[in-house]
């Protein structure tokens, strides 16, 4: 298993780690027994994501995809954010090992869940 430098950078120095109190959107996907859980917190103003935090339990690839996808949706409109695919995330990381592609789905699903939560509250 060889990761790209970008994966290792986001894994070793994950961006936007943490929680937000009273988030406008909150999502939690995965399950501990499957080996991956992602929690994502969004601050949203006028459908624009103004702050984002995450916490992820999972492998380096799960953490790195979480990290980079928070960067990718920050300051984006929620409808844009909804279009983020796991493939785009993997590409932004200069690729993932084939066996690890599935981990990137976690971030996509997490973001979707948080935005749906926000939509539901609206």
């Amino acid at each position: 298993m060889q990761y790209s430098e970008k994966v290792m950078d986001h894994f070793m120095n994950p961006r936007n780690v943490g929680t937000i109190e009273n988030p406008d959107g909150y999502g939690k996907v995965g399950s501990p027994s499957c080996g991956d859980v992602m929690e994502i917190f969004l601050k949203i103003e006028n459908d624009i994501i103004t702050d984002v935090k995450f916490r992820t339990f999972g492998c380096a690839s799960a953490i790195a995809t979480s990290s980079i996808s928070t960067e990718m949706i920050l300051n984006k409109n929620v409808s844009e954010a909804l279009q983020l695919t796991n493939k785009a995330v993997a590409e932004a990381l200069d690729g993932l090992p084939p066996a690890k592609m599935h981990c990137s789905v976690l971030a996509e699903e997490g973001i979707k869940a948080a935005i749906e939560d926000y939509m539901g509250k609206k």
Partner: protein
Amino acid sequence: MRVYLDNNATTKMDKEALEAMLPYFSEIYGNASSMHSFGNESKKAMVEARKTIAEIFGIETDELIFTGSGSESDNLAIRGVAKAYKKRGNHIITSSVEHPAVRNTCRELEKEGYEVTYISVDENGVINLDELKKAIKKETILITVMHGNNEVGSIQPVEEIGKLAKENRIVFHVDAVQTVGKLNIKPKEMGIDLLTFSGHKFYGPKGIGGLFIKSGTRLGKVLTGGGQEKKLRPGTSDVPGMVGMATALEVAYRNIDEEFKREEELRNYFERELLNKVPEIQINAKGAKRLPGTSSITFKYLEGESILLSLNYKGIAVSSGSACSSDDLQASHVLLAMGIPVEIAHGTIRFSFGKYNTKEEVDYVIQELPPIIEKLRMISPLWNE
């Protein structure tokens, strides 16, 4: 600082063993089966290597064959007995914590019509003897149980299994890949009929293994070809490998008890310090008789690969029982068999100490590990929920 704590995976070759094997590449290179002097020199070295190993195990030289790896020895032992004793029965007993070389071979045999019973282990990774006893039936032809577990270090009560096997006239194979070179092993006194070992686990070369075959034990062939190794392992003899492995074994047994103690103390020191410094961890198989250098530690709320890679960043090499770093993304069958819940099993790291590890190295790990765990737990949604 670079610290290698993955000695259960493989080891750095011993200098004396390496030096002993070097002449056999391009100075004494004859084929040990050839009748001329070049061949005789090689044959002499092969005979000597076999003698060295046989003496250490207290067995006859014609009870030992060389193979290409521990995995191959396991295959030959298990498939060999299955084939040779087919008429007597089709039942095999093994444990639920075997290495894939044994486990997957048993699985294959199930597909071929053999019946396999996988005996459970307790929370320390030790086989349930009563269950094993009850599993024995008329059709049982083989019991195959490992000596030391590669993931958690638990040592199985092979002597007692050996007694049961003998009483019931069942062939007993022991995968001793993790114990040969670390523990005193006299297969015949322990009631063992077949014993697997592998050179690179005790500072010998890779690509060479061995199998003790108690005289009288029949084995079907797995590989066919020339007459080498009693026709059980055809192919030109790997004399350098044999010499390297025999020398490594000799070196290991020179001060085996002292080294056992030294590694055990180092490992215990490591575990004590870690328990002091890192909350919410669990030492696996702690209640069992264990391999001296093996420490399997579960860091709750974390996933093993992330710990492994973070330690690697600091130059520290360990392995993980984590699903995410395994080929099939399945959590370790050993940890699950011990009753460790799958979500915790994910956060398990194996530290395996060897003869080259020092207290300074352990101190370095003790210093680097706690902040890594802390940082990773900060990222984990399971921590402080």
